[in-house]
């Protein structure tokens, strides 16, 4: 949980990250929020640390890069025949 994560940002928001050695792309941010820690639970070291343990969280839908593929699904109207073929993205 405390492992250092490799995160790629755009404008302060995460867009890609590496998890278990695999690079993921974030497709949707489901929600994002902020939390703070209970500072009174910490044993005091005499230093004033306002609101330690504050953090920002993102709940995201992500997939390994390359896992998302583009397909074309085709139906021939006359005979009702379906065809599926992989395609390159900008087609």
């Amino acid at each position, binding site marked *: 949980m405390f492992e250092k994560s490799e995160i790629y940002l755009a404008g302060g928001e995460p867009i890609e990250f590496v998890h278990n050695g695999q690079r993921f792309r974030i497709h949707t941010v489901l929600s994002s*929020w*902020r939390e703070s820690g209970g*500072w009174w639970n910490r044993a005091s070291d005499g230093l004033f640390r306002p609101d330690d343990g504050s953090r920002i969280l993102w709940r995201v839908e992500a997939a390994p890069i390359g896992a998302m593929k583009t397909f074309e699904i085709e139906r021939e109207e006359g005979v009702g025949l379906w065809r599926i073929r992989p395609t390159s993205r900008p087609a």
Partner: protein
Amino acid sequence: MSFTHLHVASGFSFKYGTTLPDALVAKARDFGMHSMALTDRDGLSGAIRFTQSCLENQISPIIGVDISYENQTRITLLATPGKGWSSLVRVVTQLKNYGAPCDLNFLKQNSNYTQNLLALHGPDSEISRALTSRRYDKALLIFNSARDLFIDQSIECVSHLIYGDGPKSTTHAARMLNFARDHDLPAVLTNAVRMKSREDAPIADVLDATRNLLPLHKKVVERKNAEAFLKNSDEMIFIADKIAAAAGERNANQLLKTTTEWAERAVLSPQSDIGLGSIHLPEPDVVGAKSQLELTAQLRSRAYAGVNWRYGGLSSEVEERLNKELSPLFLAWVMNLIF
């Protein structure tokens, strides 16, 4: 674009706000804001100090009060120019005598005052509660039942970016915004401020514990994070964008525009609306005097009577001071201040 905070609690919201009005006003000035509201909880004790520091910092004051409503909800009232300030004072005084949290009955009894006020239904309001439990019909009923009582009412969207979909989350703020849009009601953005900056959060926690007379614990502390502070315009636009996006709007322009319009409606003049710099003495007829001369004579006899009652007799020291303060010259000076 300069944002205006319409919902701000100072240290005069006892055991709630962390910062004195002066410091909040100075921070708003540093942000380049033109106006700012002070809406302390259940009182107006900070209003004059706030107005004075607004004058010093060239900020236009907006004054309101965040009052407790029945069923542990809250509603925020803002004064409008003209009779707004005196009406607000009356409402707060009447409420102290009412002996119970404000309710619809109280508002109806005092409708001649409340009709000079604007109302904001925020994240702690009855409407917000109804929307939390998806009672859209009930929320509209509450809004409509108070329609004739105020100049205008608005839905107040607040997001402290907390987790989940309860009050002060972005999702809830968006739900409030959608409710307003569905029924064509005005919606404004505020931050329900209680701190000057994020670093004040531990003070807010201690105040929560003191108010509830309970030891510091997650359940006692009101905040989930440290977002209830006086944010600058850019930070507020960021929040506005988040809420608008969650509500499915293309941008936050409408929300921000309505907020600015409401701020403009509620801006008061420190001199002509609040009466700063003038002295308020009772009119002669209030104490049963027919003229200014009779009032002076009455003042003298009452003062002498008071001396006897308080000191049991007239010492030379007391008499000297009394004569000085009742001298026509001194009184003329006081009158000069008034007229």
